[in-house]
């Protein structure tokens, strides 16, 4: 079912205003197919009617949650956000190392908040492992992955992935850090696993959030979208408090922090944003 340009723009703006994810024209067909799946469930044949349901229907609030799940499902993979990785390698990691060296603290703490099945946290681990002999020689590295779902945490801890998860990864990393256990099934290397600790955490639980202290990098991609504006603001405030003064906060590639928090400063880099205190 084809979506018209005007309906695409209406739904794109609605989604952006609701959750802060911006669908660029280039991803129109992706959004179209995900919307179509939800419309089928709802027995609707017109994008305009679906928009009305989201906006004014009694089922609107329930449906938007379902739509967001549809939009973000299967979106995670290793080395997903290439521009963010490039910025880390080229600029932010060397800067962090420089700053921490000055204060004599050779330890990096990274938090993948809403880590899902672990691809993002393990990606960080591999990138840092590659710098073990150079930039991060003799450094202590701690990567924490948290999620509310025990099911995805179990997957993360197991560390077995399919073809889809490794699709974005270079041959170099796949060969070096994965073992194909059965056809199309890849086990991550123990040295990568060792760097990451996965645990269960509800981002809305204040009493536990206050203990997630002193991170150099916090990354929270496509997670805030599930929360309403006050909840988002509260969670981001926790990130702000838990970040080192020189630390960095990242969202997903198409996500925006606009109107969520005005304390963070936005650092622009080629293809993305980082947020700093």
């Amino acid at each position, binding site marked *: 079912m084809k979506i018209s340009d005007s309906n695409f723009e209406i739904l794109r703006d609605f989604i952006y205003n609701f959750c802060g994810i911006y669908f*660029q024209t280039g991803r129109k067909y992706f959004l179209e197919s995900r919307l179509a799946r939800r419309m089928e469930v709802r027995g609707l044949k017109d994008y305009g009617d679906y928009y009305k349901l989201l906006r004014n229907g009694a089922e609107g609030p329930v449906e938007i949650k379902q739509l967001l799940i549809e939009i973000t499902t299967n979106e995670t993979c290793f080395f997903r956000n290439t521009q963010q990785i490039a910025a880390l390698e080229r600029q932010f990691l060397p800067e962090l190392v420089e700053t921490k060296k000055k204060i004599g603290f050779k330890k990096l703490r990274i938090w993948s908040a809403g880590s899902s099945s672990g691809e993002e946290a393990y990606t960080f681990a591999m990138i840092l492992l590659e710098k073990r002999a150079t930039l991060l020689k003799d450094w202590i590295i701690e990567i924490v992955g948290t999620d509310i779902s025990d099911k995805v945490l179990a997957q993360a801890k197991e560390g077995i992935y399919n073809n889809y998860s490794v699709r974005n990864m270079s041959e170099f990393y796949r060969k070096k850090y994965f073992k194909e256990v059965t056809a199309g099934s890849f086990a991550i290397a123990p040295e990568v696993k060792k760097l990451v600790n996965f645990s269960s955490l509800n981002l809305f639980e204040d009493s536990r959030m206050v203990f997630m202290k002193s991170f150099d990098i916090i990354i929270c991609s496509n997670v805030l979208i599930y929360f309403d504006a006050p909840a988002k603001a509260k969670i981001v405030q926790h990130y702000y408090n838990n970040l080192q003064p020189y630390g960095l906060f990242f969202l997903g590639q198409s996500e925006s922090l606009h109107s969520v928090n005005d304390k963070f400063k936005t650092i*622009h880099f080629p293809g993305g944003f980082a947020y700093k205190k």
Partner: protein
Amino acid sequence: MNRPNKAMRMQKAEKMITQVINLPTIPETMMRVTHLLDEPDVELDEVAEVILTDQVMASRVIKIVNSPMFRPMHEIKSLKRALIYLGFRRIREIALTCSIIKTFEGQDGVFDVRTFWEHSFGVGIVSKIIAQRVRYPETEKAYICGIVHDIGEVFLSTCHAEEFRKIVALIKDTCHSFAEGELFMLGTTHCELGLCLAKKWNFPLEYCDVIENHHFPQEATFDPMLVAIVNLADLFCSVRNLDYDNREWVSFNLAEEKSWEILRKFSPDFSTMDVERFCFELDEKVVEIEEMVRGIFEK
């Protein structure tokens, strides 16, 4: 950036300009158009006649008029209609743009000259958008100044290819900009080189101001608002894929940028803009800009 003083930078730039034997020149047609437009009682037909003596320029004027930037209701097919649509004030600017494109045509230098124009037209288009948002009265001027701001860069790439190649290699994989690399290697930058060329070509003063100060808008002497607009557009394009194919690394915090400060003073509403969304929308324009540049270069 620690810079040698202005006089020294200019001296070096002037020397580098004189070293070039076949210095690019602005086409004869452009000179004649400019002179004609300076006459008080000029007729549109006369201008059209002069431009038509240069078929490439004539077809480019038509292409630019039909581009997303000016997009008329119906496609304009004749030069005369294009000139009527543009009006006298814009004819000079469009003719100038076409001339500069022609000046560096076929001189690929260190990198494809099209990469250069993609960045330049990107900066032109974004300058126009910012100009509209901050209510700068002459949006077309912002557009043209955006297009010509890096003229010194294309000069370096084509006329001092050996040095420029070294600069590109020097900043590769680092966090440095072209200007920083140039200053280190040459003691001057594309800003001063561009200014020397602009003066040679008798560019208007505000163009010179933009070309010279687009990395330091606080040093603008003639039109600080215009320079700030182009500076900001340049920064945005450099982080949103209109960036000389990633050859230089640009990273910035808007709150610390002088241009942001300058524009907020002129237009307080500007600071409430959703900058992230602005960037996402800019990403969408990239394809359009690339297509436009391709169109302009098609023979």
